[in-house]
């Protein structure tokens, strides 16, 4: 079917070559913008561009059609060099209705390309979006290169012989838009058509409608010479290797599966659906042939409870949620800490407090992760810095949990979870296996098993699986006597056990990589970060360097314990900037630990930093 699309543009539309371009699809949540964006992204990935994406969904599943709260969008930056973010401002905006235009136009670069679906600009929709006059007619779009397309009618026309009818007809208009963009940006058409054929296999009329709409959009570009110029972005010079495009939730799920294979332990995932963590459950539940067992619990507490049971039973046990769910799990995490069972707790952070902004990213659960438990209960806390990094950090979480017999908190956020980027695939055979040894024999005198007799190096207690003869033992939330594990109310023992548990976690600092500094050796400023701000910070530092500033960056993947060399690193810069999507949480930790006055750049606006925001601060601090 693809050959019906002209591969060479027969029109004389000239082509401009760009290093990078930012495209945003915006429409009603029913308009299929996430699909359009992901298809554009995948086609670009397969074409060889570097890219990064930022989807934005309304919190409501179906807000009233045509309204501002109902607008859903998907932004992607594609480039011929290695980029780090989804871009600050779109160069091209697709607006499927007035509400989408109203909400997104302010972000479009001056002179950028605007594609509007004129059919949606009728009075009712204009009113719902808050327009008093029709922007298509009142000259307010003059600053942009506007392409007006009656997408509804053209889509209807294109799909009329495909067998879809009624309301289904207009479902294909996202493919029309996608086709037009494929033409405008010289994207390969094959991947999109193949995807539709696979996705809707068994519904030939839907495949036909989407493909026809896609072709119609593409051909619309050619035949109407929709714009005076088209654009191309050549493949990027990425490191040699095989790539896939991956989002953070998927990479994290795959990382857990990898950890299960590397440790030889069956994976158990106990959880309760919550935005934005549910996709980890969805992904894992598809892969039962890896021995993965997913358990959708009755609530968050049962999610972690079943995981604790699974850990006791000898599984690689994981629970996952977002802030509100982690709050509910808090008491149970303390139990896992007290019983010293290996457990991975994933927090895909979202805007808080309370229900907050479920679909928006924030880094505001850091202090909660570090300190949000009763009693003295320090946990290892690690954080993924990008979608693909989530794979590695999931493996790391498992390694630490299993080696040290402790719960580990793995932080992600909505930006990591739903953003995507090309991932240079690791060589599976080079991944380090994890050696897990279950206790097999009594470790005490007279054939007694001592469940709190610790390993001399790691201070981990032995892990004895139920079913092992001679190792019957009881654990629990009451304070344990050192070595024997019997209940103990002895004051000295409680002191000893509290210190031991803290020391065990602190000692992990000897087993994690030192913090690496990237950038100018003699920099005036160090920009420190953690979590999903990674790409933005590096991109901002690059930009500042182009302006002649000397900047170094360093990114923390380990927050408890902190890398051993962090104090030295911080000590070697006069000025330190710490951008965080919270009101200064890591900043508090750094000040408390090192008495260093770090400067915070803080944002809690439900959206990631723009590169320009961080750059501006760097410029200000390096004047």
């Amino acid at each position, binding site marked *: 079917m693809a050959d019906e699309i002209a591969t060479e543009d027969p029109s004389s539309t000239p082509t401009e070559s760009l290093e990078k371009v930012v495209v945003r699809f915006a429409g009603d949540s029913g308009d299929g913008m996430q699909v359009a964006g992901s298809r554009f992204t995948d086609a670009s990935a397969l074409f060889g561009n570097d890219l990064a994406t930022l989807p934005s969904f309304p919190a409501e599943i179906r807000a009233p059609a045509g309204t501002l709260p109902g607008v859903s969008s998907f932004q992607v930056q594609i480039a011929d060099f290695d980029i780090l973010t989804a871009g600050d401002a779109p160069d091209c905006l697709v607006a499927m209705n007035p509400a989408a235009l109203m909400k997104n136009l302010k972000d479009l670069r001056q002179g950028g390309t605007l594609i509007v679906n004129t059919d949606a600009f009728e009075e009712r929709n204009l009113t719902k979006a808050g327009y008093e006059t029709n922007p298509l007619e009142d000259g307010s779009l003059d600053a942009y290169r506007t392409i007006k397309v009656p997408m509804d009618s053209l889509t209807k026309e294109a799909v009329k012989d495909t067998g879809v009818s009624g309301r289904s007809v207009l479902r294909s208009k996202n493919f029309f838009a996608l086709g037009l963009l494929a033409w405008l940006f010289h994207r390969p058409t094959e991947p999109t058509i193949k995807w539709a054929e696979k996705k809707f296999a068994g519904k030939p009329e839907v495949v036909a409608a989407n493909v026809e709409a896609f072709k119609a959009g593409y051909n619309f570009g050619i035949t109407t010479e929709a714009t005076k110029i088209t654009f191309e972005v050549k493949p990027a010079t*990425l490191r040699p290797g095989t790539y896939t495009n991956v989002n953070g939730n998927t990479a994290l799920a795959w990382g857990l599966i990898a950890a299960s294979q590397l440790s030889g332990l069956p994976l158990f995932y106990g959880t309760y659906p919550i935005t934005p963590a549910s996709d980890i459950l969805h992904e894992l539940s598809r892969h*039962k*042939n890896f021995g993965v067992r997913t358990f959708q619990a009755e609530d968050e507490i049962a999610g972690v409870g079943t995981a604790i049971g699974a850990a006791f039973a000898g599984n690689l046990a994981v629970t996952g949620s977002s802030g509100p769910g982690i709050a509910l799990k808090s008491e149970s995490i303390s139990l896992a800490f007290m019983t010293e069972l290996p457990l991975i707790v994933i927090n895909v952070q979202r805007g808080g407090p309370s229900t907050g902004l479920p679909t928006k990213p924030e880094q505001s659960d850091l202090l909660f992760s570090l300190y949000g438990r009763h009693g003295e209960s320090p946990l290892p806390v690690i954080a993924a810095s990008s979608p693909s990094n989530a794979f590695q950090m999931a493996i790391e979480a498992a390694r630490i949990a299993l080696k040290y017999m402790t719960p580990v908190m793995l932080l992600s956020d909505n930006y990591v979870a739903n953003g995507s980027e090309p991932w240079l695939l690791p060589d599976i055979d080079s991944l380090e296996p994890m050696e897990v040894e279950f206790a097999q024999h009594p470790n005490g005198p007279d054939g007694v098993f001592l469940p709190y007799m610790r390993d001399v190096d790691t201070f981990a207690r032995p892990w004895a699986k139920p079913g092992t003869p001679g190792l019957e033992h009881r654990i629990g939330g009451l304070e344990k006597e050192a070595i024997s594990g019997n209940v103990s109310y002895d004051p000295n023992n409680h002191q000893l056990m509290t210190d031991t548990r803290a020391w065990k976690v602190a000692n992990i600092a000897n087993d994690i990589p030192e913090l690496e500094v990237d950038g100018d050796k003699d920099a005036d400023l160090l920009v420190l970060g953690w979590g999903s701000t990674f790409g933005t910070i590096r991109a901002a530092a690059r930009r500042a360097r182009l302006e002649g500033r000397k900047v170094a960056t360093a990114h923390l993947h380990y927050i408890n314990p902190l890398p051993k060399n962090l104090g030295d690193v911080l000590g070697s810069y006069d000025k330190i900037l710490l951008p965080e999507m919270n009101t200064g949480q890591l900043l508090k930790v750094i000040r408390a630990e090192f008495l260093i006055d770090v400067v915070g750049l803080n944002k809690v606006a439900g959206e990631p930093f723009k590169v320009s925001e961080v750059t501006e601060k760097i410029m200000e601090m390096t004047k």
Partner: protein
Amino acid sequence: MTTPSYTRSDFQTDQEVRWCPGCGDYTILASVQQFLAGLGRAREEFVFISGIGCSSRFPYYMNTYGMHSIHGRAPAIATGVAATRPELSVWVITGDGDGLSIGGNHLIHALRRNVNIKILLFNNQIYGLTKGQYSPTSEPGKTTKSSPFGSIDYPFNPISLALGAEASFVARTLDMDRNHTQAILQAAYEHEGASFIEIYQNCNVFNDKAFIQVTGKEERVHNRIDLEHGKPIVFDGGAKAVVLRGGQATVVDSNSVDPSAILVHDETRPDPSVAFALSRISHGPYGPTPLGIFRNVNRPTYDEEFNDQVAKAKERSGEGDLGKLITSRGTWTVSEKSPNGSAGSNGSGGNGSGPSES
């Protein structure tokens, strides 16, 4: 395989039992230990999980695998053990506060799923460990430390609750009747799926004689209704019988009805309505009260299906292959001589001073 031969003491630990002297928990502990010893099943295959409360101390006294967890969560934790290790025998020890108040949600969902766990709910109708507040099974009007003017909470009927939660095995027994307890334990153990046993347990410190109507020498003669599968339900030395009237289980004088009208107990009835009707004969141990197995039916267990899905997936798609998984969403390859440049780019995270992004 040789069958281990155990005595009760093989299931005892070296930990000093710390219940109040005279507490019903002692008798239950003895019954359970004796029952397990009699099974002849390897000790290491038993796991006891409890929550918080007097009864939840139980695992510390059982020489098996065990966990004394947190308040109300034992059914969830036990589910994690039982679902991933179906070859083990997993038991939950809970109480009326632990299982019906703070942990009510986990209890009903474990029953609904039919996970293969055996739940022993020690019902003493009071909060013991926190020293005497009314519980969700205390009778209305009960005066306690937290209800000096009488409790205004309407209590749960644990049997009705379990039946409503789709439990496949529901029974009631008494702490002091060790034979009855052990018979019920045996049936619960043999049942495949979740078993729920309410055990009337006397708290002699905060709620003494709460069950006197069914335990007292004089009283029990008139009030104890023993449910026996396949037999007409009669009690009080045959003077009283239970009949169904308009769907309701009603106590009548035996000689006032035709013997054929007397309800014959059938614990295997697929429909739980009659079992529910029986559970409503009394809303607490205050008059004629049925003891025994209310319901014992078979339906697929959660752990079986849980692991079956894994086995089937392996059959269908073969053992998972990580290399295939991470390339399953389409890949592209950048070669040393990639179209637009050479090897050795900075890669993401490099100290690029290349073009700047918007």
